[in-house]
C-alpha cells in the first residue's frame, strides 16, 4: 500500500450536453504503484482519454475520490492542481504538443520554469541536458520543433515530461501520429525508462504496444473489465 502513487476510488465522469448525458466513466477503481507500467486499452470512445485526464488533474471527476501519493487531490483548486501536475506528473500527448516558437531546450525546460522551487539556470541546464541524453537528442538542443521528425518531436516531449522528476508519466496514444518505425523507437524509450524505475500509465489502442506493459487494463463503456492481472483498489 505504501508504494501506491495514484489511487482512484469509485471515480465517475458524466458529460452533460444540452439533451445528452454521457456516462464516460462509471465507478473506476484503480491503483498504480511505484515502478508500474500500466497500459489502458479499449475501443474508441470507451473513456480512455477521459480517465487519463482525470488522473492527470486536467479534468475533474463527477464522483469518487482520487489520491496522489496518499494525498487527496479530488477537489483541488485550479492553481493547486497546476502545482501538483508540475511536481508529480509528466504528460506525453498523441500530438506531441511542443511549442513551435521555443527551441528544443526551452520546450524541455518549460516545466522547471513553472516549478515552485524556482530552480536557477545552471540547474535547469543540467536537468535539461540529462533528460535530452536519455532520449538521445542532445545534438538537437537548439533546433525548433518543426525542424525535427515526428519521432524526434515525441522524444523531446518525453524529455519534457521527465525533466521535473515526476512521480508518474501519463501517456496518451504516444504513437498515434507516428509511422511504425518511429513509434517503435518511442516505445523503446518508454520501456527503458520504466526499467530504470519510472512509473508509467499509457493509453493505447494498439494491442502490440499494450502488451509491452506489465499491467493491462481493459476499458469498455467506461468500466474496467475484470481481469486477473488487474489490481483493484480495496
Amino acid at each position, binding site marked *: 500500500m505504501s508504494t501506491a502513487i495514484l489511487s482512484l476510488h469509485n471515480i465517475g465522469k458524466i458529460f452533460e450536453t444540452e439533451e445528452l448525458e454521457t456516462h464516460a466513466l462509471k465507478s473506476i477503481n484503480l491503483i498504480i504503484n511505484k515502478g508500474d507500467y500500466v497500459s489502458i486499452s479499449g475501443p474508441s470512445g470507451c473513456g480512455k482519454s477521459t480517465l487519463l485526464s482525470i488522473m492527470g488533474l*486536467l479534468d475533474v471527476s463527477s464522483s469518487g475520490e482520487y489520491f496522489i501519493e496518499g494525498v487527496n487531490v479530488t477537489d483541488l483548486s485550479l492553481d493547486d492542481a497546476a502545482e501538483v501536475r508540475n511536481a508529480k506528473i509528466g504528460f506525453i500527448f498523441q500530438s506531441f504538443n511542443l511549442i*513551435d516558437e521555443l527551441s528544443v531546450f526551452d520546450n524541455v525546460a518549460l516545466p522547471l520554469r513553472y516549478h515552485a522551487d524556482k530552480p536557477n539556470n545552471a540547474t535547469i541546464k543540467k536537468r535539461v541536458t540529462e533528460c535530452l541524453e536519455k532520449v538521445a537528442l542532445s545534438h538537437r538542443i537548439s533546433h525548433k520543433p518543426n525542424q525535427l521528425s515526428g519521432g524526434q518531436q515525441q522524444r523531446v516531449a518525453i524529455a519534457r515530461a521527465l525533466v521535473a522528476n515526476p512521480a508518474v508519466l501519463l501517456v496518451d496514444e504516444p504513437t498515434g501520429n507516428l509511422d511504425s518505425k518511429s513509434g517503435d523507437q518511442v516505445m523503446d524509450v518508454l520501456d527503458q525508462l520504466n526499467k530504470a524505475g519510472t512509473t508509467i500509465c499509457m493509453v493505447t489502442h494498439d494491442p502490440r504496444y499494450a502488451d509491452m506493459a506489465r499491467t493491462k487494463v481493459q476499458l469498455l463503456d467506461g468500466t474496467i473489465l475484470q481481469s486477473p492481472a488487474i489490481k483493484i483498489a480495496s
Partner: protein
Amino acid sequence: MNLFIYQLKQAYLSLKQKPIFVLSVVSTMGITLGALLCVLTLAYVMLIKPLPYPDQERLYNVEHQLISNENAIDGRAFTYPNLMHLYNKQSLFEQSVLMYVDGDVITSLPSEPMVALSFVSPQWFSLFSAKMALGRGFEASEKVNSYNPVAVLSYETWQNKFDGTANVLEQNLTLGGNSYRIIGVLAASNIEAPLAGAGFKTELYLPWDYNSVSERERKRWGNDDGGLIFVGKLDKKYSGYSKQKIDQILTRLVSDNWQSEVAGHAFFKDWSIALQTKTLKSFIVSDGERSVYLLLIGALGLLLIACANIANLFVSRTVERQQQLAISAAVGASKTQIFHNILAETGLLMFVAIVLAQFIIFIGFSALQYYLGDFLPRIDELELNSFSFSISTLLLVLLTVVFSLLCRKMINYHALNTTLQSSGKGSGIQVSKRVRNILISSQIAIATTLVFINVVLYKDASELVNQPLGYQTENITSVVLALPSVEKGLQVQKINELKSELLAHPKVKNVSQAMRPTGFGTLALTASITEQRYTVLGKDVDEQYFNMLEQEIIAGENFSAADIKDDSSVMIVNDVFAKKLAPNGSAIGFKFKNGVEIIGVVNSINVPGRQRIESRFYYPASLARNMLLIEQHQGQVFSRDEMITALKKVDRKLSLFSFTSLNEYKNQRLFSSQTTAVTTLVLAILTLFLSGLGLYGILNYSSQMRRSEIGTRMAIGAKGKDIVGLVIKDNAGALVIGLAVSFVVLLVLYLSFSDSLSAYINLELLPLFMLTMGAIALLSSLACYIPLRQFIKKPVIHSLKGSE
C-alpha cells in the same frame, strides 16, 4: 455579369448566417462614415464651394484698421465718416454695398416683436442678386441720402409676422418712431450672405439712411463701430490688380483724408488708417475655418479607429471561415475566385454601411444646422449633393479593396488545400505575429493620441466653464428698453418712474441702471501728468451696480448717488488697470486729462473667451441710460410679461427691446466651451470603448490561435497568472511601440502647430499624458486578460481539447 450576381448572392447568404458580425461592421462603418461625410460636406461648403452670388470671385470685404502710434492695430472696425468717404470716393469697385446691423421693435404690430435689422444701400439687392417673392428691392430711389422711408421683409418675417398676406405691400410699419412703407418681400430661396456673423438672420431691410448711428457719431472720425460693413464688387478692369495694390489704393484714399481731418486731435498724433481687402468668401468663413479643421481631425480620427476595429473583425471572420474556404478550394475554386468571393462579401457590407451613412448624414446636417447654425457660416447651404455622393462612392471602393486585400493577405491558398486533410488543424489562415503586432500598435497609437487630444481639449473647456466669473449671475435679469426719441429730461423722468414702479413690485429686490456686466465699450484716455495714452474697455454704471453683482471694491470707494446724479468726474478702475497706472503705489487719486479722478479699485471680472489681464474702468451712468439690471428676491421669477406690464403702466410708448437673465448670457458665452467639454468627453470615452473592443478582438483571436499552446503550458504546471503574465509580456512590445508612436505624433503635431497650440500646452500636461498612457495600458491588460478567462477559469482539458 451572371457570375457577379451569383457571387453577391452567395455573399448575402453567407453573411445572413452572421448577424452579429454584419451588425457590428455596418453600424460602426455606417456611423463613422456618416460623421466623416457630414464633416467633409461641411468643409466643402465652407472652404471650397463658391458663394451663391454672381461673379463671387470678384466680391470683397474691406476691413478698416486703426493703427496706433505704437504701430499696433487698435481697432478693426470702420469709423462712420471713413466708411462714407470710401463709399463716395472709391472707383475700384463697380458696385459697392454699405450695411449696418442692429435690432429694434416693430411698434405698429400688436405683439411688438423685436426684429433683426439690416440697413443697406441699394446695390445690396443687385450685388447679391436677391430674388423677390413680392414687389421690389431698393433701387436708385433709395440711394444714400435720399431718405425714402421704405422697407423690405425677409420671407420668414412676411410669413410669421404678417401672416403671409398678399396685401402686405400696401401696409406700413413703425419702428423707432418712423413709419416705413413695405415695398418688397424676399423670396424663400434667397440665401443671405452672413456678413454680420453666422447666426445673424436679417428679418427686416431698411434703407442705409435710417441706420441707428446717431447724427453726432456720424461725424466722429475717431470712434469705430463694429456694425459698419463694406462689400464691393471689383471692377473687371482691375481684375489683374494684386491684393497689395488694391489695399494700397484704398488705404491711400481713406488714410490721407483721415489724417487731415484728425490733425487737431492730440490723441491721434502719429496714428494711421489701413484698409485690408479680403475675398468675401474667406471673410465669411474666417472664424469657422478652425472649427471645421477640428471637426475634420475628429472625424478622421474616428474613421481610423473604426477601420482598425473593422479590420480586426474581418481578420476574425476570415479565421472563422477557414473551413468554408478550404471546402471551396477543395472543390476547385481558384485563388482569384476566392478573392472575388471575399470582394463580394466586403463590398456588400460596405455598400450597406454607405447607405446607412446617407441617413446619418441627413441627421447630421440637421444637428449641425440646429446646434452650430449660430457659430458656423453657410451651414444652411448643407445638402446631399454630387460632392457627398462622389466621396461616398470613392470611400465605398477604397474600403472594399483595402479590407479585401487584408483578408487575402491572410489566406495561404496552398495551405488551405491541405487544411481538410490535416483534420482541421490547418494553417491555411494565418495572422502573422507581425501583422498582429502592427494592428495592436496602431490601435494603441491612435487611441492614445485621440484620447489625449480629447482630454486636453476637455480640460481646457471645462476650466473655462468652471472658472469663477468674479460677479454673481443668480436672480439678475438684464433689460434693454426701446424708448421713443424724446427730450432728455423727459426720458430721465420716465426711467425714474419705471425704477420706482419696479422697486415697488413684490418680486423685485433691487434695480441698477447699467448694461449687463460683460458689455464694454472701448475708450481713449490720456493721463494728466505723463500724457501717456491708454485705450481701455469702459462701462457706465450707477451706484447700485457693484453691490448687486457682488463685485468687490478692494480700495477706495463706490460711486455715491450724488456722483451719478451730478455726473461727477470720477471713475473706478479694475485691479489690472490700477496696477498699470500705479505699479508700486495706489491708483486712488490718479487723474486724467479730461479731469476725471480715480476714486476706487474693483476686482477684475472674467469674461469667457477674453484675457484676464484686460484693463477696464467704470464711470457714472447717465440717468437717461436705457439699460437696467433687475435683481429678484431669492426664488422669485420676474417675468417678461410682468416687465412689459410695468413699462406700459409708466407710459404706453415705452417698449421692451430685450429681456435676458445673466445666467442666459453666461450660458450663451459658455455654450461652445460646454459643447466642447461634452463632445470631447464623449469622444474620449467612445475612443476608449472602441479601441478596447478592437484590442479585445485582436487578442481574442490571437488567444484562440494559441489555444493549444496555452493548454499545453497549463498541463505542465502553468497557473492562470503565469498565462496572463505571458500574454501581457508578449504584447508589451506592441504596447510600448504604440505609446511611443503616439508620443511622436503628438510631438510632431505640437512642433508644427506650436503657435496656435501654445495656449493649450504646458508642463501640466505631462501627468495628463502619463494618465492617458496608464489608462490605455490598463485597457490593453484587460483586453489581454478577458479572452484568457475562458482558458484559465476552466479545467485544462477544455483548452487542450479545442486544439484537436
